[in-house]
Each structure stands twice: as C-alpha cells, then as structure tokens.
C-alpha cells in the first residue's frame, strides 16, 4: 500500500514536468503556432535553472531563470515565424537542434555539480493522513501550481475576453486582423508564454526531479508534451490528465525496473515512447474529430498586406 502511495506521488511529480510544458504549448497552439522547439527550450532552461540553483541555492530563482531562458528562445523563434514567415516546422526543429547543442555546450561545467539537500515538503495535517498523505500532500509546491495553472488557463481561454481573442487569432487570423486585433503581437505573446512555461518545465526537471544536469536529460519530454496537446484535443484539463497518465507510465516502468521484473530494462524504457505512439494513433484515427478540435490556422503563416 505504501509503495502504491509513493507511485502516485512519483506520478504527480513526473507528470508536473509534462503538464507545464504541454500547457505552454497549448497556449501557443491555440494562437495558431506550433513550436517544435520544445525539447531545445526545455534543455536550455534545464541548464539555466540548474546553474541558478547551484549559485543561489534558491529554487524559485531557478524556475524564473528557466522561464526567462525558454521565453527568450521562444521569442527568437516567434520573430522568425511570425514576422519573417519562416516555416514553423523547420524553425522549431532548428530551435530543438540548437537548444540541444547549446545546452550541452553551456552545461559541461555543471555535469559534476550536485544540488544540496532538498527540502521536503509536507502540508500540515493533510500530509499526516494515512495513504493520501504520502500520495498527494507531500509534494513540491510546483505540483500544486501546475493544477492551479490548468484551472487558470481554462478560465482564461473560455471565460475571459483576452482568451476569446487568442482563440480567434488561432482559428482565423484574417478575421481577427480585420477586427483590428494585432494578430502578430498576440501570437508572439502566446509563443513567449509557451516558451516560458516549457522553460519552467525544463528547470523543474534538473532542479527538483533529478537534482543534477546531464546532457540530453529531457529525453524526449518536449516531444511527448507536443503529442499531449493533440491527445488532449487542445483542452487544458485533458492536458493535465494526459500529463499524469504519461507521468504514470514513466514511473511505472522505473518501478518495474527497480523490482527486477523479468523483462529487459530497455523494453521498459521504451514504454513512454511507445505509449505516445499508441495514444497518437488512437486519438488521430478519427480525422474529422481532430479537425473539428484543432485550431484552424495551426501551422499556417499569417502575412497581413
């Protein structure tokens, strides 16, 4: 039973990474921009966050550094695709390739570093409950923040005027432009917010999740986050659910490896990636369902006049 509680706790922890990244990507995809650079932004942010944590010892500054790094890279991407009309897929790929190399380059001096003793978090009373205490209420504050963020984004998209404008830009940039909304600036803002959230996710990996920096440590989480937005048909609550689902798969395979199950560890390591493929296949099978839910202008450039 205790072990099951720990598995739930670990799932929430690992799902939080995917949740931040996928929520960020959701915002920029809702505005019509696909950023394939998620993996690169997360890696650079993981280094930025880790370096900040090593030098200052402050987790919150580390998350801020990660957000700034992710946001800055996303801004460069945004200027290219929004003002210079470069191909979104190619530019995102460039960002991923650059980010992977750049993070490895900058991070080399941090490969030996290790963060000091981690605080343990424990919500009074609730954390002492049997089972639910260790499962749910002894998490890093960011875990709860991810849930709050999901609610906030859902409210923003469906209940606020700004969210309506953002969705309008993603569905039909021409109409939004005709109504006088600054389509390109809105898209840039969405891209930067998306990058910043990917950055928070990257920093969370190195600072909270592993406490160290390893080259290529995101191991495809940026790409899985991209798949999650499709899986969630671009809805915040489903993104969160999907993130926990994938976090669960990752943790389950680690646990099975730890218990020495009679399957080669390599096949267990494959599981999250195979799960991503399976989920994509299941959700995409119905093409018209995807088309109805997908922001209509996604991936297409908008060039006023």
């Amino acid at each position, binding site marked *: 039973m205790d072990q099951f509680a720990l598995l739930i706790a670990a799932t929430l922890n690992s799902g939080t990474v995917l949740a931040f990244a996928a929520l960020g990507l959701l915002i920029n995809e809702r505005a019509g921009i696909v950023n*394939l650079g998620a993996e*690169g932004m997360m890696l650079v942010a993981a280094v930025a966050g880790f370096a900040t944590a090593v030098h200052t010892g402050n987790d919150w500054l580390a998350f801020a550094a990660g957000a700034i790094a992710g946001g800055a890279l996303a801004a*460069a991407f945004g200027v*290219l695709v929004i*003002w*210079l*009309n*470069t*191909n979104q*897929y*190619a*530019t995102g*790929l*460039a*960002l991923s*390739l*650059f*980010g*992977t*190399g*750049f993070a*490895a*380059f900058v991070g*080399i001096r941090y490969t030996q570093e290790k963060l000091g003793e981690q605080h343990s978090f424990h919500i009074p009373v609730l954390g002492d409950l049997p089972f639910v205490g260790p499962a749910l209420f002894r998490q890093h504050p960011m875990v709860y923040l991810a849930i709050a963020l999901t609610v906030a984004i859902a409210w923003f998209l469906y209940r606020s005027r700004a969210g309506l404008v953002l969705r309008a830009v993603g569905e039909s940039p021409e109409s939004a432009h005709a109504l006088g909304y600054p389509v390109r600036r809105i898209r840039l803002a969405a891209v930067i917010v998306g990058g910043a959230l990917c950055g928070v996710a990257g920093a969370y990996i190195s600072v909270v999740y592993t406490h160290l920096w390893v*080259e290529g440590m995101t*191991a*495809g989480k940026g*790409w*899985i986050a*991209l*798949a999650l937005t*499709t899986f969630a048909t671009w809805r915040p609550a489903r993104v969160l659910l999907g993130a926990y689902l994938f976090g669960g798969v990752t943790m389950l395979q680690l646990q099975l490896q730890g218990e020495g199950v009679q399957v*080669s560890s*390599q*096949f267990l*390591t*494959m599981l999250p*990636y*195979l799960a*991503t*493929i399976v989920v*994509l*296949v299941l959700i*995409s*099978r119905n*093409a018209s369902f*995807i088309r109805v839910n997908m922001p209509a202008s996604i991936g297409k450039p908008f*060039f006023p006049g």
Partner: protein
Amino acid sequence: MLRLEARPEPSRAMSMASPLIALAITVVIGTVLFVLLGKDPLRGLAVFFIEPVKSAYALTELAVKATPLLLIALGLAVCFRSNVWNIGAEGQFILGAIFASGVAMQATPSTGDWFFVPVLIGGVFGGMCWAGIVALLRDRFNANEILVSLMLVYVAEQVLNYLVYGPWKDPAGYNFPQTITFLKSTQVPKLFAGYRVNVGVVVAAVAVAAFWVLLFRTYAGFQLQVGGLAPAAARYAGFSSRKALWTALLLSGGMAGLAGGLEVAGPLGQLTPHVPAGYGFAAIIVAFVGRLHPVGIVLSAILMSMFYIGGELAQSRLGLPKSLTGVFQGLLLFSLLACDTLVHYRIRRKT
C-alpha cells in the same frame, strides 16, 4: 521602420545567396563566441574551416563523415519536397545499422568478399521497415509523422541497447556492450590503402545523380513535388497523396538505413551503443542548407562534415566541448531560415 514586401516571384539569386549569407552569419557569431570564451578566434575558425581540408588524410576523413550525411539528406530532401516531415532519420539509421549487423554476423571465414552487398541490403531494408511504420500509422490512422518518427528514434536506441547489452554481446568482449568485430569479408572495400574512406563515397555519388534524375527528370518525382507544393492541385490532377507518403518515407528510410549499414560495415566494423552519432538530425540541416537539391546537398554535407571534424579538433586542440558542433549546426539552420525570407520578400522602408 522596415517592412517586408512580397516579391512577384521567388528570387533565384537570393535562393543561391542565402546559404552563403547564413554561413557568413554563423561564422561571425562563431567568432564572437570564440572571443567570449577567451580563445583566439582565428585559431578557432582555422580548426573548423582549414584543418579539415589541409591534407589528403584530412580530406578523406571529411569524406568519411560527409557520406552518411549526404545519403540521409538526399532521402530527406525527397520527403521535405513532398511535404512529408520525417524527422526520425536517426532511428532509421540505427535500424539500418542493426539489420546490417545482423547480416554481417552471419558471415563465416569462407564467405567471399562480396558479402558486404547483402550487409548493405540488410541496412536498407532495416531503415525502410522503421520508416514504413511511420508511413503505415500516418496512412492508416492519420497519426502525425513528425511525432511518430521522432518517438521511434528513442525506441530504436533502446532496441540497439538491448541487442548490444544482451543477445548480441561479444562473449569474448570483456563484458563491453558491443558485438563481435565483423569479419573482413563483410567490410565495405576501401578506396585507398591506409585511409578509412571506402566505396560508400562512390555509392553516395551515384545516389546524387539518381536523386537528381528522380526529382527533375521523372514523372514520379514531379508528382511527389506537386503534392508537396500544392496538395489541392495534386488531388485535382489525380496524383495519389498516399503513394507520395509511402514513396517519400520508404525512400528516405532506405537511404538512412543504407547510411547506417555503411557505418557498421565500414569505419566502425561492429555494432556499439555509439553508432548513433546524430547524423540523422544533422542531415535535416544538410537537406535544408542544400536547398533540398542533390547538388546543393553535396556542398552542405561537406560543410556539415567540417563542423563535425572541427568540433572534435576544438575539443582536442582548444579544450572546448565537442557540443560546439551542435551549436554551430543549429545557428546555421536558424540563419538560413531567416535569410530565406529574402527569397520571397524584399525589405522596403515603411513610408
């Protein structure tokens, strides 16, 4: 303020000049980077642009690295021209290496010197199978090929690890995760004694010609490209987009697999966890920088190969991390995409 104005038609001159401008931008940023790192920028640039072409040996090493990049990028060019986004060439390369190794391990001391041919065919087949999964899932289930092909890279790495840590581990290899060293009869013949460069370069040269003919002189190549440029027009003309998808993916998978086979049956001579060297990702940059044109790809593959060798030299000579290669590769693609704007637009002063 400046603004962009659409050109009536794409500028041919800019389309040629843009990779050169992008290279110039990368060099300028590289120079700044060297200065910031406290290294002599001239020495830094020499390591990347002069050392790799200084001697006959250096040139052959350049060819050794350019060959897989060239082969993979040719296949990817067909993909990208048909608007099929296969970004998992790295995985197809790994599967090619695995299948080729599987064949190579069947060799016995009595097999003839021709045995490298089935080894390479095995490689092509492996790459095609892996890309075929992507085509199947896209065709049958509408699953996004970008994400599926990329996820399969991670899966391929694990398959490779499983084999070299498990069933294929050399029993006499001191427990190192690697297969036996393949017999000499499986080795791709070398071109000159004493150099690592082999017949793979010739294969690559033939492939360049073949892809040029395919793209610009055959009806099938024309159909593929119309599908990429104007899907609606292709549909109206009755060109099958499904056929285009399968052709592009199997072709690029086969080329990546061939490159993987050439690596294990050539410079490496055995299967190890270090077979994936990022060629599959670098080839994406090679394809774009080469304008998705076979001749352009030759030039960009050589350039990218210089980046690889330069990165290794920067590590040994200047004490800089090898990942500098990735930084320069990414910068090059970024600047290229930015410069490419000038092919379709011109800059005007806002009045």
